[in-house]
């Protein structure tokens, strides 16, 4: 029976591997930029400037209440009419970063709210500058409090990234589309790739947990 042969897996191993590299690369870049923007966004939501707070919450609401695929299409198909032409991979990274930062801003903000005000006051009593207090005292405690939620959000973003195959970024799903188009083993191909995604999401959880323990100290799940 054709469906039980495994030769096609061997033949498509290289394509699948390059798809995995692209998917992992996309999420790695997104985690770095998205993480930084989330912290910046959460800090801006506590700004003294009312317009700054309003702008950030407007951005967060707009992104969280629209589908990622629409954001992706808007960036890739819509922005060129404003004269901003992006290559598909750059558009994918931009859309993923914009998307994850909105969720991340909310998560980091909850973490900042959870840090006792006494911590900030203690920092001020020691004569530290505001920026130093935020980066060295408040932020690490805030991130510790919400780290599991941040990890879950990054895993969700990695799974959502399957959609970037629709703008012809050669990620894992795109490679699966190509493979099934010439083997005609659609179900088997997608089943295999789904299993790879499952493995990647378990792996990403482990790696981020490890990174969290290294950066923020032990005791982080």
């Amino acid at each position, binding site marked *: 029976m054709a469906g039980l042969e495994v030769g096609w897996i061997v033949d498509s191993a290289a394509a699948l591997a390059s798809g995995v590299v692209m998917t992992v690369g996309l999420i790695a870049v997104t985690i770095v930029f998205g993480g930084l923007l989330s912290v910046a966004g959460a800090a801006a939501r506590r700004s003294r400037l009312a317009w700054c707070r309003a702008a950030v919450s407007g951005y967060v609401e*707009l992104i969280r209440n629209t589908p990622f*695929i629409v954001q992706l299409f808007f960036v890739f198909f*819509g922005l060129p009419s404003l004269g901003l032409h992006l290559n598909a991979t750059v558009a994918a990274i931009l859309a993923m970063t914009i998307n994850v930062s909105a969720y991340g801003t909310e998560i980091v903000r909850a973490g900042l709210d959870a840090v006792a005000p006494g911590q900030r006051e203690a920092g001020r009593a020691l004569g530290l500058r505001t920026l130093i207090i935020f980066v060295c005292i408040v932020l690490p405690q805030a991130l510790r409090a919400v780290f599991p939620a941040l990890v879950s959000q990054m*895993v969700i973003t990695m799974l959502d990234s399957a*959609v970037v195959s629709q703008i012809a970024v050669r990620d894992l799903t795109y490679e699966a589309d190509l493979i099934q188009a010439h083997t005609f083993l659609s179900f088997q191909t997608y089943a295999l790739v789904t299993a790879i995604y*499952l493995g990647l*999401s378990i792996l990403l959880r482990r790696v981020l947990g490890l990174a969290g323990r290294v950066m923020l100290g032990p005791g982080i799940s």
Partner: protein
Amino acid sequence: MEFTFWDILRNLLLAARWTIGLSLAGFLCGGSIGLLLLTVRISPSKPLRLGAVFYIELFQGTPLLLQLFLVFFGLPLIGIDVQPWMAAGLGLTLWASAYLGEIWRGCVEAIPLSQWDAAAALGLHRPYQLRLVILPQAARIAVAPTVGFLVQLVKATALTSIIGFSELLKTSNVINNATFEPFTVYGAVALIYFMICFPLTRYSRRIERILKVG
């Protein structure tokens, strides 16, 4: 043929009916299976519990897009002539059931164990303990996260455009191909999704606040 902005908007709003319909269908069917999944997930039998955990992990750990592909290409293998709406409905139902089952489990486990004991002391069997004592209390705290998930579900329906279901996004792709105005079309689409989702988000947040105070 010329399309005015109003032509575009009117056609998009007509297509939004399918997005709302699919969301409701996915919610009702996914909710029913989710309820079943919840009872299995908290059942006294360990193999049953593990089965439910596996099901939930499987659907929460893989992309929804791939799940839709598997339904779309899998059903013909068992001899079912699959239409896009069937694959879209079934795929979203399975996906939503995993999330709703897990959300509701959290709500059930937030109810103190003494409530189970009290129900048992009244001589109720386990299904009745759950139905008459635990679920009514859990339902109160379940409203906010359930409405919150409904927002996820509405957004998830956009993916069914990829397997050819003519909801809002699929229609906008067609309109975009005819008008070559991607900025307007996808901007308007984003706005329509926002108008569906934002009230739900607000409602969910308000309920959450009321429960915290009360």
